[in-house]
């Protein structure tokens, strides 16, 4: 038998100790070396360590938009752990289950009737060739490589690198296990030969959303990071802890998020490009200090990698429910910019743009990522950093003349005033969260308050007028049904829409990547052409509420919303769109 392939989704389930996630990573990396694009998502149980874990890898010849709805193949290292994910795991009709032959297959499995069950001796083989159960996952990898027609070279290189630190014998044991796994597939009675076509061998990047944010920030020139650990944002701070010292930047693990953000504000006052990264609970704690940055007009960047809420919620799972807080949170009239990347590649673009806007407009810029985007591993096209370098800018400094009777908060046409920093002669001023006049002197005068409030507010208008709209748009010009979504949900929606358009549906999608200030005019123009709009989001309706607050929506609006935790699947969106069409 032989099957032609351009898109495969494979999951591995087992306990954390069985190396599920490592196997997934090796699979994705090896495939990338072989020219494929891909995405991996992971899921864990509540145990801190050693609990159940699931790695889902999707491989494609073209860039991957979503995690993949239904599995072509599921590797079960242990059935016990499978059941923890049974609601998350969907095997496609005609899909395959590769399960360890040492374990009895349980009754009442939630798979389609025509699912193929293949018992494979992963454990026995590992014990036989490596003398230990530990390489069971690598045996499975070998099996998968051969089964799905992936050349062994990439795998072998990855395995060698990954275990190099553990010494020669470990590397050898794993390589042997891999080969034994290949042999198992080769020899398997019901073997299906998969063939790939059109694989474009071109350089690629492989990284997570959190890595993309970190890398992009470094490119933008970040030199100060203070943060406090929090799932699922900690990887950004761990990255900074490792990389910033190499470029003479400063990394501090603060005592809490309030300290983190106020340190960042201090560092910005001191002249550094400065940022922090957090998740919902930390973001809520930073609310007061965010207002300080707005009032003292200091450039800062805050990354929020959203997770399930409210309160501690579900730290390890995704959500899009910090939206209203980021766009509207904070007491007083608090100007801020909010950006939202839609995928890993976009995360690089958006974080560079975030620093650009922060420095140019001297205010807090929030970047909204989420667990789904932050922790998924993607194989993407290389990013053109050269093209991004225009956006690496510094804040505007006063001229010699302006320094003569320096007005730090001079009212200007754009709302932006030239800023000094310690060390600049003649530029001395007192920054403050207290209302102040153009010189920075505290005041409680109503007229000055009025002027300064609108001066700060003006910057948002300037951004809306002068900066790129950051709209992602796709679809049919004559579509009467439109879809709007934001952030990491974009990929799933794009895939659903493409699928339906291939089926003949006329659809148009709009995804704003800058939420504040929202580019109202072009979005309104888009909406005005529609008869019906579908709003897709992982929250109880925050994006819909936000859109309503800024725009006039069509008479027919349908909502596709869930609290979160699990990201949307393409199938869910397809159904929702079909319902709108039917209505």
């Amino acid at each position, binding site marked *: 038998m032989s099957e032609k392939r351009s898109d495969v989704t494979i999951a591995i389930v087992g306990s954390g100790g069985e190396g599920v996630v490592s196997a997934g990573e090796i699979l994705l990396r090896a495939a990338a070396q072989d020219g494929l694009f891909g995405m991996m998502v992971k899921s864990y149980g509540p145990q801190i360590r050693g609990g159940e874990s699931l790695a889902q890898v999707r491989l494609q010849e073209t860039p991957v938009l979503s995690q993949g709805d239904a599995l072509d193949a599921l590797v079960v290292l242990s059935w016990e752990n499978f059941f923890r994910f049974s609601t998350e795991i969907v095997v496609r009709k005609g899909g395959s289950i590769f399960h360890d032959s040492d374990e009895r297959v349980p009754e009442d499995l939630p798979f389609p009737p025509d699912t193929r069950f293949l018992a494979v001796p992963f454990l026995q083989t590992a014990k036989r060739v490596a003398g230990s159960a530990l390489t069971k996952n690598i045996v499975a990898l070998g099996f998968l490589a051969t089964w799905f027609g992936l050349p062994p070279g990439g795998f072998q290189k990855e395995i060698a690198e990954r275990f190099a630190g553990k010494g020669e014998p470990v590397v050898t044991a794993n390589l042997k296990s891999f080969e034994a796994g290949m042999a198992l597939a080769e020899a398997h009675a019901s073997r299906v030969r998969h063939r790939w076509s059109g694989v474009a061998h071109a350089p690629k990047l492989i990284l997570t959303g959190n890595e993309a944010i970190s890398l992009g920030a470094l490119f933008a020139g970040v030199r100060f990071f203070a943060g406090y650990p929090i799932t699922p944002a900690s990887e950004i701070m761990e990255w900074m802890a490792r990389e910033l010292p190499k470029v003479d930047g400063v990394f501090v693990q603060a005592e*809490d998020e*309030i300290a983190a953000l106020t340190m960042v504000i201090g560092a910005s006052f001191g002249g550094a490009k400065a940022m922090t990264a957090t998740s919902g609970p930390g973001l809520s704690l930073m609310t007061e200090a965010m207002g*300080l940055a707005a009032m003292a007009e200091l450039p800062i960047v805050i990354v929020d990698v959203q997770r399930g809420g409210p309160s501690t919620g579900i730290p390890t799972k995704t959500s899009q429910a910090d939206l209203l807080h980021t766009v509207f949170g904070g007491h007083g009239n608090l100007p801020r910019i909010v950006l939202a990347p839609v995928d890993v590649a976009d995360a690089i673009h958006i974080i560079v743009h975030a620093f650009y806007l922060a420095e140019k407009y001297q205010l807090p810029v929030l970047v909204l990522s989420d667990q789904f985007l932050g922790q998924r591993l993607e194989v993407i096209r290389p990013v053109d950093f050269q093209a991004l370098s225009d956006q690496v800018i510094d804040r505007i400094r006063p001229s010699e003349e302006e320094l003569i009777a320096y007005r730090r908060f001079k009212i200007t046409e754009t709302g932006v005033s030239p800023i000094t920093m*310690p060390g600049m002669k003649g530029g001395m001023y007192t920054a403050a969260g207290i209302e102040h006049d153009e010189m920075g002197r505290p005041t409680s005068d109503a007229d000055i308050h009025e002027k300064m409030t609108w001066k700060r507010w003006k910057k948002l208008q300037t951004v809306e007028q002068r900066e790129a709209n950051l709209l992602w748009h796709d679809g049919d010009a004559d579509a009467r049904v439109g879809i709007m979504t934001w952030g990491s949900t974009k990929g799933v929606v794009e895939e659903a829409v493409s699928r339906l358009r291939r089926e003949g549906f006329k659809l148009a999608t709009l995804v704003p990547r800058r939420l504040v200030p929202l580019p109202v005019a072009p979005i309104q123009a888009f909406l005005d052409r529609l008869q019906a709009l579908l709003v897709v989001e992982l929250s109880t309706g925050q994006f819909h509420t936000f859109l309503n607050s800024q725009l006039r929506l069509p008479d027919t609006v349908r909502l596709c919303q869930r609290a979160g935790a699990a990201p949307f699947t393409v199938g869910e969106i397809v159904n929702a769109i079909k319902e709108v069409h039917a209505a």
Partner: protein
Amino acid sequence: MRGYTAKDYRSGVKPVWCPGCGDYGILNALYQAFAQLQLPPEEVAIISGIGCSSRLPGYVKTYGFNSIHGRALPVAQGVKLARPETTVVAVAGDGDGLAIGAGHFPHAARRNIDLTYIMLDNGIYGMTKGQVSPTTGSDRRTKTTPYGIVEDPINPVKLALSYGVTFIARGFSAQVKQAVDLIIQAIRHPGFAFIQMLSPCVTFVGREQFDIIRSLAVDLPPDHDPTSLEKAWEVSNERDRISLGVIYRTESLPFEQRLRRIGELAKRGGDHHFDAALRPYMVAS
């Protein structure tokens, strides 16, 4: 070149402080200390939180940051780490530094960042018009303790000592000369220096606060050994008097130098431009 004099540091903004407020004395001491140290005004940054005391930066012609309540220390640390050449002075009230900002104090201390932390302690919330503060004496009535105070007061010097602060002193607004000297020593100290400055609130505690402090205050004897932890501990336990002067000092690597060590370790690997950071994510295929 003519040197700087105290009045070169006056910003010209008129203080909102009540006539007779202790904070004037500390402000004056600061002007004089800066002048004696001949600090170029643009090389100084004074960072405060919110409170009467925290209005201070606005009255000094240096860089300043009157931030938010309780956050003088983290803001100051950010400034210092971003631009280590700056002389950074953090100013806080007793409420600012010991209530809402209490959590930052031990951490600033254990980092030993080279800055000077002056706490203007009046034993009251001045700015909000007279509520109890962490250092209010147990015998007082305040707006929020109309029947007396139930909490035991906090002793900031004792705290500093247990936090491992590497320079600890206590001054008094009415003894400006000594205050100048303490500030100079604190600024010169390489690492985190803390000064509790007793600074009466004539309005919400009353003028008698000066007299009470005067009646209890004694300069530390000339033979006080500030390098002795034991002696410092004894001073911090005094109840019958208030010792003024340098209570404790020790040597420890300032944070900035510790960071430099980290930087050297990090850079052992080779080149460190952006491309080096990008490389691990590249897949050639």
